[in-house]
């Protein structure tokens, strides 16, 4: 197996290979690409949450300057375009199995590039205008006259699941597309029956959006001479998008080339194809010119795939000593107007018991359509939601039953000697030291000094709140990955099908390759993102990339070393078994002769090589790995509330994250930092608000959608723990999502702690200044009236 002592690059905080181009303005983002003759697309977007499209009059628009074409859903149907095959039901061997009611097939409403029947959410594209310039296209889009028959609508998650809710799809009797149950009903019921205590909580982890800072963009070109399509579009994986868009266009996959180079943030939002990607290709075929689309930020707020939106009801059965006996959970996920991904529901379902040894559990998982933008896996898909549920429920149990909240957790954590631990819904946790994580975290967060800090804050008129959460998450993702490893006289090239959006694959994959082959890190380059070069690959999501890449690279390097040995034996004219590979060179035993990789590469095209050694010093290796891993950790924060305004500052934030093998600590810490900010953002500021009266989204810009900023985030204390996973050669788990997963729970835990004198908090995230102030007011009023009585 791996010789850790030989690691020269793995584990070191090496600065990134990608940075030089990005800090000098030479990045290659989608909108940086332009083509001769390029024209622009703009979308006509529905102003209604739900409306039948009666007629589209494009005459006025067509007469406007520069307009080249106006296309509708009817045109798409006429031209034989197919729906986007999102394939939303997770299907690895270890994903929980989601079905429709009574085990039926999940109904997936068709996602055409432009709908011909009706619009199902505000902002849905119902027509496309193409014009010579972007300004002309946008101006003409406003002039397209769409006649709508406005229909009743529903946006709220719980309301959409009601039997009499306005229905989005005629094919099913209501809006519920998934209704599955898991777990041991009998065992759970028996445990609840004998429990000393039962604690219950209902919560809605609301809708947020990913806000990658690069607005989504695409430029498509159909070459009439070759019949081939080219699309530049930043995404979470060009290979997948090529496959899906080929289906949409009803074309052979080899007639499409997708390029995705630098991607300005993803966080899940870009993992599924957008209608505009198919539309620019379609328009380019119709017009014979390259067609570009670039979203305004306001369009991104409205129509980037969104995240979260889960209503959860959880109950915990606890015995008199505080031991957890069983859990009941019911999760309802709002998929929006079309089902793009069920990953959030599925991921969360396998983790409802969190870091705790709870012998029995039952879970009902449901998904519902609504007149909102579709949701997608977003920054730790599904895990923050269920972590929120279990961790907030434990806080509640501790408060109501008089346990210490840290103690109650300790009493129930899964212990290292139980690993691998199969939880009550069947997920097999691979490894981890959950209680040790808690201890490390409490030391890092200076838990001992907290009460003194609380008193000091009080002297300044501030209320300090301490929040805590444990977490376990899962990294599964698409099971297949492929790597080509090519040795040339001047370096090693790796071609692989992941798609980073800032995660530093060009660096960390090079570290792994360098150590596997024993070559200098500087000599390894990673090629990504062009489907004419990258033939297969699973893309980047679910924390899969480092684990899958290191695994396929480990396998490929074994093949490559075998090939190198054979080549060396031939070149040196010695028997194969006398060639040893060590320290990055091929030696002959008892002789002072060796060949480096690069020496061999120079000889790999020699004439007269036997057939099996010809074709260069390179290998292609596929790997398929279904087994998930379970990164885990603990997190604490301290906030200071200003009781006069309800405003708060985060003053300390600490995390301990078991990521398995850490390839590059600089990168992994950075991933954690960013993950924290996104989780904290949801807890305190971020929310896609829909006006309950009109169904209109009202947080459509940075003016209304509060973001983590320099001055509302603290510096973090992050500690990496490396309990190697036994499931893959390097022992990798995953990094980054661990920053997000516990963050909403830990912030709300701190808010509740700070406000404890005013009663348990009864509001949902985000914990805005207005909500906190209102809670303080009502708490004071209650205290006054009870004092008076």
């Amino acid at each position, binding site marked *: 197996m791996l010789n850790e002592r030989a690691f020269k690059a793995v584990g070191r905080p090496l600065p990134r290979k990608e940075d030089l181009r990005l800090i000098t*303005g030479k990045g290659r*983002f989608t909108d940086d690409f332009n083509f001769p003759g390029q024209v622009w697309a703009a979308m006509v977007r529905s102003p209604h949450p739900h409306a039948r499209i009666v007629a589209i009059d494009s005459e006025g628009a067509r007469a406007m300057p520069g307009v080249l074409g106006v296309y509708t859903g009817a045109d798409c149907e006429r031209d034989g375009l197919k729906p986007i095959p999102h394939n939303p039901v997770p299907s690895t061997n270890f994903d929980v199995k989601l079905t429709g009611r009574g085990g039926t097939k999940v109904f997936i409403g068709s996602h055409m590039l432009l709908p011909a029947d009706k619009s199902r959410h505000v902002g849905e594209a119902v027509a496309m205008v193409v014009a010579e310039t972007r300004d002309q296209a946008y101006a003409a889009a406003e002039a397209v006259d769409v006649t709508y028959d406005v229909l009743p609508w529903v946006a709220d998650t719980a309301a959409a699941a009601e039997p009499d809710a306005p229905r989005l799809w005629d094919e099913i009797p209501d809006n519920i597309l998934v209704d599955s149950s898991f777990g041991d009903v009998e065992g759970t019921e028996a445990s609840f029956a004998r429990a000393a205590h039962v604690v219950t909580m209902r919560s809605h982890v609301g809708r947020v959006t990913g806000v990658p800072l690069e607005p989504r963009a695409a430029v498509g070109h159909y070459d009439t001479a070759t019949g081939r399509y080219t699309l530049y579009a930043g995404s979470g994986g060009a290979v997948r998008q090529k496959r899906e868009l080929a289906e949409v266009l009803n074309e052979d996959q080899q007639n499409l080339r997708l390029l995705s180079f630098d991607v300005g943030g993803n966080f899940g939002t870009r993992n599924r194809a957008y209608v505009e990607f198919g539309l620019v290709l379609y328009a380019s075929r119709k017009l014979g010119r390259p067609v570009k689309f670039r979203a305004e930020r306001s369009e991104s707020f409205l129509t980037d795939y969104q995240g979260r939106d889960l209503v959860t009801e959880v109950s915990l059965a606890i015995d008199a000593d505080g031991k957890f006996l069983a859990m009941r959970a019911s999760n309802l996920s709002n998929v929006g107007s079309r089902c793009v991904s069920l990953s959030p529901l599925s991921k969360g379902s396998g983790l409802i018991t969190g870091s705790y040894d709870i012998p029995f559990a039952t879970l009902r998982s449901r998904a519902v359509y609504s007149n909102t933008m579709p949701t997608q896996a977003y920054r730790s898909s599904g895990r923050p939601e269920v972590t929120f549920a279990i961790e907030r429920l434990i806080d509640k149990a501790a408060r109501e039953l008089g346990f210490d909240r840290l103690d109650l957790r300790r009493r129930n954590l899964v212990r290292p000697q139980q690993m691998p631990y199969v939880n009550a819904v069947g997920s097999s946790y691979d490894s981890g030291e959950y209680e040790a994580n808690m201890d490390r975290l409490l030391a890092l967060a200076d838990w001992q000094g907290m009460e003194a800090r609380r008193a000091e804050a009080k002297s300044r008129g501030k209320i300090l709140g301490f929040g805590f959460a444990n977490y376990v998450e899962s990294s599964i993702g698409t099971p297949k990955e492929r790597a080509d490893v090519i040795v040339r006289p001047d370096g090693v090239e790796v071609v692989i099908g992941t798609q980073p*959006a800032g995660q530093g694959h060009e660096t960390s994959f090079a570290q792994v390759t360098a150590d596997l082959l024993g070559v200098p890190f500087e000599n390894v380059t990673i090629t990504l993102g062009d489907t004419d070069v990258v033939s297969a690959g699973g893309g980047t999501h679910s924390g899969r990339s480092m684990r899958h890449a290191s695994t396929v690279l480990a396998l490929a390097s074994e093949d490559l070393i075998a090939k190198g040995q054979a080549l060396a034996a031939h070149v040196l004219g010695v028997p194969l078994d006398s060639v040893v590979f060590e320290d990055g060179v091929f030696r002959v035993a008892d002789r002072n002769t060796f060949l480096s990789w690069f020496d061999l590469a120079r000889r790999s095209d020699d004439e007269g090589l036997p057939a099996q050694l010809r074709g260069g010093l390179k290998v292609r290796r596929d790997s398929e790995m279904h087994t998930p891993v379970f990164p885990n950790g603990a997190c604490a924060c301290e906030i200071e509330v200003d009781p006069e305004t309800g405003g708060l500052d985060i003053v300390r934030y600490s995390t301990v994250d078991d990521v398995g093998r850490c390839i590059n600590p600089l990168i992994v810490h950075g991933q954690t930092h960013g993950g924290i900010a996104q989780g904290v953002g949801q807890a305190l500021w971020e929310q896609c608000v829909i006006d309950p009266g009109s169904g209109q989204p009202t947080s459509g810009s940075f003016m209304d959608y509060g973001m983590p900023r320099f001055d509302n985030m603290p510096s973090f204390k992050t500690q990496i723990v490396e309990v190697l996973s036994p499931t893959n050669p390097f022992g990798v788990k995953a990094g980054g999502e661990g920053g997000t997963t516990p963050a909403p729970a830990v912030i709300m835990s701190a808010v509740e702690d700070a406000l404890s004198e005013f009663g348990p908090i009864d509001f949902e995230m985000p914990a805005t200044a207005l909500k906190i102030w209102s809670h303080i007011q009502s708490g004071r009023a209650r205290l006054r009236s009870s004092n008076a009585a």
Partner: protein
Amino acid sequence: MTTVSMTVNGSPVSRDVEDNTLLAFFLRESLGLTGTHVGCDTTQCGCCVVHVDGRSVKSCTMLAAQANGCAVTTIEGLATGDKLHPVQEAFRTYHALQCGFCTPGMIMAATNLIDTYQGELTEEIVREEMEGNLCRCTGYHNIVKAILAAADAMRPARRAAE
């Protein structure tokens, strides 16, 4: 149409553009300087920050015509040949970027902050003064570290200039 002339990264340029052309798109589309990014339409994200006559501005909220006659510096003009600006260097050393989309604006904002801030930069001041730049990847932690480190590295040069 209007003729716009300015100095960009030390070289004089002159182009005929539509009057409504924003400086950011003039740089990106007329001059091909695609390092300046546009991330929002409400003057908040800061991806488009460049220097105009020595001041940091959001180039998405300024017409190219308003920069007529000005000296403009973009991310492409910051390094001297192969020698990176200390802020660029610090961003790499401290891993102050991930996807890199906000990075040009972030670096242009930071260089201007270090150049023009009267007095000592502290973490608190950096966080306050940089609030006009959004980053979605880093949680800001490493950017703050990089700016403070670059300020330290640049201090002797600043003193000499004073």
